[in-house]
């Protein structure tokens, strides 16, 4: 089965997941992102690469933050950006997801940035466009269900590479709600593809998906053991609705076991970096002293995120 993200020449034409992408393509995106970082430092924060192209932000699930970063990225590439918060509006009128896509293609969309609560929704759109031979229209997954958030995974990889240079000697720990986390899945695929020797996931069993080890990670239920000697700590956001109930008894108890404090962080390597995809729940998964501390690279992550999204859009739109 051909990877639906690649065209007949093996070039990236949609970005749906990091799973199964050749390492060279991932490295190519990271390399391309580097010059884009500097564009944010200029007088005119814009390059004309996507002039005349229309980027449709198709958000079936609300996320102001992610939508904004894609919007900034597209605008810095000089694309026209159209934001559509679909929510329930068109589906309640009986229009299907693919009806919506066909309509927007008829309005000359070039790139769809798709956020959807259902895993696989961007794949469905990409497969539909591929089947209809609309190969000039590209899909970027901006987060689908629990499945993937590949641009977040890439910006995490970019951040790690920025601070640690290489992957082949790193131990990376991902802490928290791995079960529901598309961020974790994308980062795991990216790290293993780039040859990271040890990726750990840390959390209670209720927040670990079945047979997660098959993705190439080591599971730790004890955070202290899991943090020992790591180079990178990635904290995952714990959704409000999961803090009380069948998965966890309380936010307080969660913080006690899995909240990142200075004291727990001291178990990692001295030059450890701390990452978080945002938005943070201070005092639930991370202590403010850590979030704002010297080891935190959470704000640079956001800056790199724009450059990585610029790189992704300019690469796929050219293929």
């Amino acid at each position, binding site marked *: 089965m051909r990877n639906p993200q690649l065209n007949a020449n093996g070039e990236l034409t949609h970005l749906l997941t990091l799973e199964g992408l050749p390492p060279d393509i991932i490295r190519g995106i990271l390399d391309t992102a580097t010059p884009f*970082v500097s564009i944010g430092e200029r007088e005119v924060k814009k390059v004309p690469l996507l002039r005349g192209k229309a980027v449709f932000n198709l958000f079936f699930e609300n996320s102001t933050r992610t939508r904004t970063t894609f919007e900034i990225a597209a605008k810095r590439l000089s694309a026209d950006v159209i934001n559509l918060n679909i929510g329930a509006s068109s589906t309640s009128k009986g229009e299907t997801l693919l009806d919506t896509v066909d309509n927007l293609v008829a309005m000359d969309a070039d790139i769809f940035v798709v956020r959807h609560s259902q895993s696989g929704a961007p794949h469905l759109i990409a497969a539909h466009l591929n089947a209809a031979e609309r190969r000039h229209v590209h899909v970027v997954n901006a987060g689908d269900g629990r499945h993937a958030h590949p641009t977040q995974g890439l910006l995490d990889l970019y951040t790690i590479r920025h601070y640690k240079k290489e992957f082949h000697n790193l131990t990376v720990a991902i802490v928290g709600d791995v079960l529901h986390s598309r961020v974790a899945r994308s980062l795991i695929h990216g790290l293993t593809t780039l040859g990271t020797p040890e990726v750990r996931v840390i959390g209670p069993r209720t927040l670990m998906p079945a047979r997660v080890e098959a993705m190439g990670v080591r599971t730790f239920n004890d955070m202290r053991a899991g943090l020992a000697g790591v180079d990178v700590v990635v904290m995952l956001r714990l959704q409000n609705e999961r803090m009380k109930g069948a998965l966890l008894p309380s936010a307080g108890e969660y913080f006690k076991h899995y909240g990142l404090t200075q004291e727990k962080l001291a178990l990692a390597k001295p030059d450890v970096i701390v990452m978080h995809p945002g938005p943070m729940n201070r005092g639930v998964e991370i202590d403010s002293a850590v979030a704002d501390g010297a080891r935190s690279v959470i704000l640079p992550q956001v800056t790199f995120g724009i450059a990585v999204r610029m790189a992704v859009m300019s690469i796929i739109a*050219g293929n």
Partner: protein
Amino acid sequence: MSDATALPDAEATLLALAERMRGAVAHDAAFVGIYSGGAWLAERLPALVPGNHPVGYIDVAFYRDDYARTGLKPNAKRTELPFDVDGATIVLVDDVLFTGRSVRAAVNELFDFGRPARVELAVLIDRGGRELPIEPTYCGARLAVARDLSIVLSRDDGCLRLAAEKQGR
């Protein structure tokens, strides 16, 4: 001329270019090389042209007009202009001037950093074949070259060399 052996020596041509710039170029003009050949030349020129010349680098990958046809080339470099572009005199430096499209892209990019007082163009080789109204201010050598050949500057152990290659495309 379509014979590779008839190409001039790159190092000698660089000296000829520097000779033309000497005295003519402003003493504080910045030398901004267009990646990759132009960047090598811009690095060498301050030692050959008297004055105080800051060096910058420009990668026009994001400003090219052939993106729609060829997509984004991998390994784009970071544009670095470590001086205030506003009011500066800038000499864009490129290895081979052909259609003029790279220079057009570079000038556009420069203006996204500020408003220079004056922009000049220095090229090692002017091979003709312009598709835009662009002319070099300083030129190392002029050659007539068949359209299907590309003239490529390479650097080996710090030493510059010119070669002609049949175009693949």
